[in-house]
């Protein structure tokens, strides 16, 4: 009964989405405030309905209602509660409901927080959101119904793929979707602006917080996915240039470009039509990502199940959304008047360079991801494009970007002084030289490219600090003055410093992977294995029972110079429901390096294969990503985005006139 309620709520949500995508649009065209206001109420109610539908699905999972096909196929009564809940989005149908839930959440947020927007713009934005919602609700109801029941109900379910039963992965999809779907708001704003034919600084100020929020969530989502791969797959890789990873990375790259170009629109009234294009491309890439992952053209852990109707449907949605918005762009964009002029060497110029490099980088990733699919589709050779391709195309493009990250913020708007900026960066230059010399001394001519990567990270990190120190006059003015300046510096400024520093930390973590050490050996209890100054001793391997698995649990003592540092328990688990073994790795981290241990196979007697890795700076990859997201959040809390709070109390007309 409850599940039927959910189904019904979702159908109602579809009806509302249809209303939302037409009435406000007509209202905006005919200047009828009443019609425009329909957008807000439908967006709010639509969210409530989708939330209700989602809640009924969660309820079915928690109570293990196996008469629901979706629950039967993806859940099991013996599964821990957390994974019963996260299992809701551990399958195709449920994850699409989550997609629409987040989409309607953003629609409702635009309706709720957007009352400082001009009513016509808000109505159009909500109408476009409504159209996207319509498309995906149709997709769920016609091709991916999660509410399907069968009778009689089976006694127990088939369970969730054990590899997905992990806290890191449990929250990876919601964050990823918050990012993917969050970009829909920027897309809707762009399409609304094209319909309206007007883009100004105020428009950019409204778009930026939404983009920023989506970008933060996507950053966290990607980092979580990579962290999960690192500690579950048993050999410590954290990025595989797998098409599914690329699908999330492309919107991130273009979204980052959008974040930066919107600054130029806001501050300088330039790059308008480019920014609109980026907003369209970012969400289009999110849709393409959804298509790649959900249509089954790729085989991976993410491709849950395949049904040709679904692929065709998503492809159709893609064509309508991307084709439609780009056609609109082609017609309307030439009418957008460009604003402020600037010299090539200027803050704007640096941001343009950032945009060019990020979008070219995204294009190379796009080619590398889709070329094998394309070739396969036209019946050509079967091939795969792996990390060597990306190392040779994407990485070289990021080097000039990282060089420029430190310089850009030190250039003035309109016309910058490159020489002056470089002079002020002498500290960063000194840091680079120091890292290079120290690295050469320590590694005795080790991998030189990795060393250059570390130097580049030092450059970006110190560059970010130099800019920040200049702004608050650190060490150049009395401490009281510095403190006052730091307090009055806009939070967006602190946010930028934090995000750029985070980028540097991530780059350092990536570069340092060149110094990984690896040992694989068969150990009998009592034997030990030396690696990078540590000694791992296998004490015992014992049987252990989990809630829905049985395991071989090893006890491994880590010592260094005779002192015990840690006791690690890597496991080899076996899930009887799915008949699948998985590895549970054990990691001892000092934040400067990880000691990573995985238990391999038994040799039939009492010997066990033990795999140990020493990975310097590897935690920095994710720490840096967290810094980037925190920087984004700090920037998001800036007073500037809340100008609406003060304006909201004024009558609508006065607020509009004040702009």
């Amino acid at each position, binding site marked *: 009964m409850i599940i039927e309620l959910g189904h019904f709520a979702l159908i109602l949500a579809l009806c509302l989405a249809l209303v939302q995508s037409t009435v406000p649009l007509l209202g905006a065209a005919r200047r009828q405030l009443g019609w425009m206001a329909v957008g807000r109420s439908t967006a709010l109610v639509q969210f409530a309905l989708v939330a209700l539908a989602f809640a009924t699905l969660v309820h079915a999972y928690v109570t293990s209602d196996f008469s629901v096909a979706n629950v039967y196929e993806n859940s099991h009564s013996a599964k821990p509660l957390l994974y019963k809940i996260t299992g809701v989005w551990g399958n195709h149908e449920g994850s699409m409901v989550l997609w629409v839930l987040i989409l309607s959440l953003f629609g409702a947020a635009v309706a709720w927080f957007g009352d400082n927007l001009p009513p016509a713009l808000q109505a159009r934005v909500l109408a476009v959101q409504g159209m996207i919602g319509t498309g995906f609700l149709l997709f769920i109801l016609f091709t991916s119904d999660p509410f399907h029941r069968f009778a009689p109900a089976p006694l127990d379910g088939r369970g969730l793929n054990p590899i997905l039963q992990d806290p890191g992965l449990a929250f990876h999809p919601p964050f990823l979707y918050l990012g993917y779907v969050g970009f829909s708001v920027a897309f809707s704003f762009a399409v609304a602006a094209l319909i309206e034919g007007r883009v100004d600084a105020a428009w950019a100020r409204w778009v930026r917080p939404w983009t920023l929020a989506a970008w933060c969530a996507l950053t966290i989502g990607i980092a979580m996915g990579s962290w999960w791969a690192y500690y579950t*797959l048993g050999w410590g890789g954290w990025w595989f240039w797998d098409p599914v990873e690329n699908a999330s990375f492309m919107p991130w790259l273009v979204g980052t470009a959008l974040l930066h170009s919107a600054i130029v629109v806001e501050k300088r009234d330039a790059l308008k039509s480019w920014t609109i294009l980026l907003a369209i491309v970012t969400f289009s890439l999110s849709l393409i990502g959804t298509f790649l992952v959900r249509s089954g053209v790729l*085989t991976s852990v993410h491709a849950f199940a395949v049904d040709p109707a679904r692929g065709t449907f998503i492809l159709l949605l893609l064509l309508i959304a991307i084709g439609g918005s780009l056609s609109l762009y082609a017609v309307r964009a030439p009418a957008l008047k460009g604003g402020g002029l600037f010299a090539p060497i200027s803050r704007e110029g640096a941001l343009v360079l950032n945009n060019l490099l990020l979008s070219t980088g995204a*294009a190379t990733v796009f080619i590398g991801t889709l070329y094998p699919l394309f070739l396969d589709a036209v019946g050509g050779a079967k091939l795969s494009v792996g990390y060597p391709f990306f190392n*040779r195309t994407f990485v070289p493009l990021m080097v000039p970007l990282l060089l420029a990250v430190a310089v850009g913020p030190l250039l003035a708007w309109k016309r910058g002084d490159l020489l002056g900026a470089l002079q002020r960066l002498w500290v960063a230059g000194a840091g680079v030289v120091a890292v290079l010399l120290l690295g050469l001394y320590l590694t005795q001519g080790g991998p030189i490219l990795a060393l250059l990567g570390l130097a580049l990270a030092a450059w970006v990190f110190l560059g970010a600090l130099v800019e920040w120190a200049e702004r608050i006059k650190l060490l150049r003015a009395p401490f009281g003055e510095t403190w006052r300046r730091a307090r009055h510096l806009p939070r967006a400024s602190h946010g930028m410093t934090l995000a750029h520093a985070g980028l540097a930390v991530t780059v350092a973590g990536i570069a340092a992977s060149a110094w990984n050490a690896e040992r694989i050996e068969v150990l009998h209890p009592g034997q030990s294995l030396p690696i990078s100054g540590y000694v791992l001793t296998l004490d015992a391997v014992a049987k252990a029972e989990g809630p829905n698995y049985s395991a071989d649990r090893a006890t491994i003592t880590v010592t260094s110079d005779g002192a015990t540092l840690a006791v690690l328990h890597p496991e080899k688990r076996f899930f009887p429901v799915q008949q*699948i073994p998985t590895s549970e790795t054990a990691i001892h981290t000092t934040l400067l390096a990880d000691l990573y241990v995985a238990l*391999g196979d038994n040799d039939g007697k009492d010997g066990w294969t033990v795999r140990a890795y020493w990975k310097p700076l590897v935690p920095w990859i994710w720490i840096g990503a967290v810094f980037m997201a925190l920087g984004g959040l700090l920037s998001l809390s800036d007073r500037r985005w809340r100008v609406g709070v003060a304006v909201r109390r004024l009558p609508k007309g006065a607020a509009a006139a004040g702009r």
Partner: protein
Amino acid sequence: MTRKRRRLIGVLAGLGMLGIATALVLTAFSDSLVFFYSPTDLKTKTVPQGRSLRIGGLVQPASVVREGDGQTVDFRVTDGENAVAVTYVGALPDLFREGQGVVVEGTLGGDGIVHAATVLAKHDENYMPREVVDALKQSGHWQEGAAPARGEGAK
């Protein structure tokens, strides 16, 4: 700086970037693409030695030999028609088993043995790498329903 000149600089910068990207992609394409071969292809076609390639098929039952060092594993990958010997040093994925589908990436040595750099196995019981399915179909050893392949329906 006039609007026209700024636009010109913008267009030139964009074209320059496009040129660089094209050059990078083309050079990377010329030697870092990895082609896929079935064990039968390896027998019948000329395959460049020393170049990275992928092979796919089933791990031949009773062919897996673990050497004493705990790292080196030798096995044969078969498409039912032909089989090719593979040697691998490193950690095998959890789901590597005899009779299961695998994709091996590595290089073909002069001895006809594939020296694997990575071995990919399926993530769950319902999934078989698509290349493996195609290889088995080509050799006529594909059994419908034996191992439902995800991705098959789309064809």
